[in-house]
């Protein structure tokens, strides 16, 4: 992670609703100009975190600060520092885009003359200048998303929090949105972006926070997280003919078994894909340890077209982190249960 000036910081942020813990000791920091990808399944606690950050919700414990302002006690300051775009557009009927932006500009106390200028600027930044006189309720989803971002930019906030900005957008609009977000980061804005479309996030985020069941499972740069989650790496061996597949598969399986690190009880994960003339296997071995396998296969007289590692993407990383986190939770609760049973006994 970069050492840039911290703009958003949460410390042991916890939110409980009766017996349900929506957010459990969330600690993270985001630097100036960074784009944080906030990833998690539905109900993971993303929106709860965001609502606390923008001052719409109160944490049960812990603290959250944006540019030094306390999200809990300095809500007026926070409102000027943050631009929040919820998942829902929040349109008003019979209002034109310019009137819509004018209203929010006036609500933020921007002087009338400056407001007119600012409306032009934000529409230009978001590529929505041509929408100036259109009715907001007649806009398409992609157009509405642009106007929504323009609205969040009206008061020139330091931090932008965007909830699912790419939701419901067509491919072109998604690309445009990506370009727009990168442009905002270049302008020095700090962005927190949630999305279910993880490949999209992977292309723009410097920092990623993965959250499931209210707990932060992974936090750091994309590279850091990948490195952490890649305990088992997947390799593919492309072959020249179909009859090689079973033979090479068996050779790989035996070779992996012979390696010290491979648990003897578990069968190595080797998949033979005849249709693709390919053998795929997963292992925890590093590059140096895997390299002799290629030599071994060549020495066996096999013709190898390609020997490559399959890149793990953000989706894989997320699934890996989420599953590991969930298993830890199950183990912890089982352990607690056993301890309790023991105590009862």
């Amino acid at each position, binding site marked *: 992670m970069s050492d840039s000036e911290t703009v958003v910081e949460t410390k042991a942020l916890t939110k409980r609703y009766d017996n349900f813990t929506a957010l459990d000791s969330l600690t993270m920091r985001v630097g100036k100009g960074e784009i944080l990808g906030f990833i998690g399944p539905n109900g993971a606690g993303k929106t709860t975190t965001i609502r606390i950050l923008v001052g719409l919700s109160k944490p049960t414990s812990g603290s959250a600060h944006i540019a030094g302002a306390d999200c809990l006690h300095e809500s007026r300051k926070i409102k000027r520092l943050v631009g929040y775009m919820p998942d829902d557009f*929040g349109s008003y009927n019979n209002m034109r885009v310019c009137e819509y932006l004018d209203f929010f500009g006036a609500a933020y106390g921007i002087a*009338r003359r400056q407001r007119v200028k600012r409306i032009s600027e934000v529409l230009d930044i978001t590529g929505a200048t041509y929408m100036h006189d259109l009715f907001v309720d007649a806009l398409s989803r992609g157009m509405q998303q642009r106007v929504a971002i323009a609205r969040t930019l009206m008061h020139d906030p330091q931090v932008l929090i965007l909830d699912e900005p790419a939701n419901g957008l067509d491919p072109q609009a998604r690309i445009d949105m990506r370009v727009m977000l990168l442009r905002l980061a270049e302008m020095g804005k700090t962005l927190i972006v949630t999305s279910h479309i993880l490949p999209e996030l992977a292309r723009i985020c410097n920092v990623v926070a993965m959250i499931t069941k209210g707990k932060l499972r992974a936090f750091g740069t994309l590279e850091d997280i990948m490195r952490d989650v890649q305990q088992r790496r997947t390799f593919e061996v492309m072959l020249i003919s179909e009859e090689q597949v079973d033979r090479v598969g068996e050779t790989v399986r035996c070779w992996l078994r012979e390696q010290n690190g491979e648990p003897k009880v578990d069968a190595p994960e080797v998949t033979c894909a005849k249709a693709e003339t390919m053998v795929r296997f997963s292992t925890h071995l590093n590059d140096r340890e895997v390299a002799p396998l290629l030599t071994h296969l060549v020495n066996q007289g096999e013709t190898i077209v390609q020997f490559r590692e399959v890149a793990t993407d953000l989706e894989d990383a997320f699934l890996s982190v989420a599953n590991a986190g969930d298993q830890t939770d199950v183990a912890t609760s089982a352990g607690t249960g056993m301890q309790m049973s023991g105590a009862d006994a």
Partner: protein
Amino acid sequence: MINPVIQREFYGILRSQRAMAVLLCLTVVFSIAVLMRWPSDASVDLSGKQSLEVFRVFGYGLLAGVVFLVPAFPATSVVNEKNGGTLALLLNSPLSAFSIYFGKVSGVLLFSLLVLLSSLPASAACFAMGGIDLKSELGLLYLILSLLVIQYTTLGMLVSSYAQSADAGVRITYTAVLAMFFLTLVPAAFFPGTGGLMSTATGWLRNVSPVPAVMEIMGHSGVGSAGLKIASTTREFIVVTLLSSLVFAGITLSRFNYRIFDRSRAKGVITNDRGTLAQAARRVMYVVDPQRRKPGIPWYMNPVMVKEFRCRRFGRSQWLLRLISVCTVASMVVTFAAATSATSWGVETVGGLMVVLQVVLVVVLTPSLASGLISGERDGSGWELLRLTPLSSLKIVRGKILSVAWTLGLVLMATLPGYLIMILIQPAMWLQVNFVLICLVWTAIEALAVSAAVGSLFRTTAVSTTATYIAVIMLFLTPILVWLGRDAPFGHDTVQTALLATPVGAALNVIGAPGFESYDLLPQAWWVAGVVSVVMFTVLGIQVWRLTRAV
């Protein structure tokens, strides 16, 4: 096999808390009304007068129940289905358009039947008292109400098929229902029994309203007959209701295809981009052109108030100007007619009519404007956005209240020319007119406070609009219903107490409207309106505080 749409509609309505509350309230209210008038002495009333008194309370109550409650369900029936996307699914299914329409209408009618059934114990009690004829009175009342239910259901469905939101459906349906219920009586009052085409037309128009038919059953002379005995209106009412229902149903049914979705939304041609001639023409047409590019909101104006004006189709200035012009012209025509002896009415009757017209306007307009002040924002996620701005909750509410208050103020001021002419005719009425205007201002404030408070209690706009209309209409109509039963079954004191609930009775009393002279309502009516308004604004304040705090 039973039409699946009927099943879904009927069960859907029955499952809603709204429906349960309606049925429960009606049963309780009817039972209490009958119990209150149930004879407690041992004497036998051979004339049937006592039972007729009970029957009148029950009959008018039931009529009010149908008018308030029935339109709410069909008004949202089609538009909800259309906006939710399920109407497209239904039209895409093997079900015919007629089956879908029939199913939806039947669902609402079945529920309305339950509403009428909930009154059966009370009506049975009325009948048991004796003196009420089963066929010509009780049976006829139920027949008229059943037809009214059909008419309102088909009307609500028609409006709903055109409306773009559930809220708009409710607003327009209630406005249409009130117009059919009340405004159709007004023209007949101008041309009573004079003969000729105009008189015949207004006579038929009068029969659109159920009031004359119900009053006839109750043994009262018909409203709008101006004291003249008019031949039985029940048959005309039945014919008019059946015909209008058929027309409403036909038009709605003709829209149950691609046409119901076929609506292009004008993306907004701005007047500033048009030619000079077009700009000039629009300037003359509109005075305040809604399509002109607006200047920014000035610093001295509450942005929420301006936003409310801008995002309401009806709240836009050109509509307000039209409404005010209509009010001004109407009030001047009425007063001028009285001054030139075109009618036999005195200034008091004209004044009374103007007060009633203005109150109807306030009662129709206020819930429409104020019910969605908070729920409209919550419904469309605007509330979260407002909370994110540095605007204080007080400023938000003030802006919203002001947007309605200005509109109502302008509507009230629009009739000032009529009152001025009245003062010119009888200069001695200066003080009375002042008192009437104060009463009307209090009426508007009370209606605004009740609408805003009741509307804020609900999350969805359609529900809040329905609840607000019911609350406001009940508040303003109940005293008038009690007044209609003056002398029998209600005594002078009961009527006086009921009339204190709103300043409308006081306004009519001050202006000297016939039937209101004998009550002493000022200044108590102002105090009551003040207290009710303060309580309601407090409720609104608490609700807004609850919604704006971070939890």
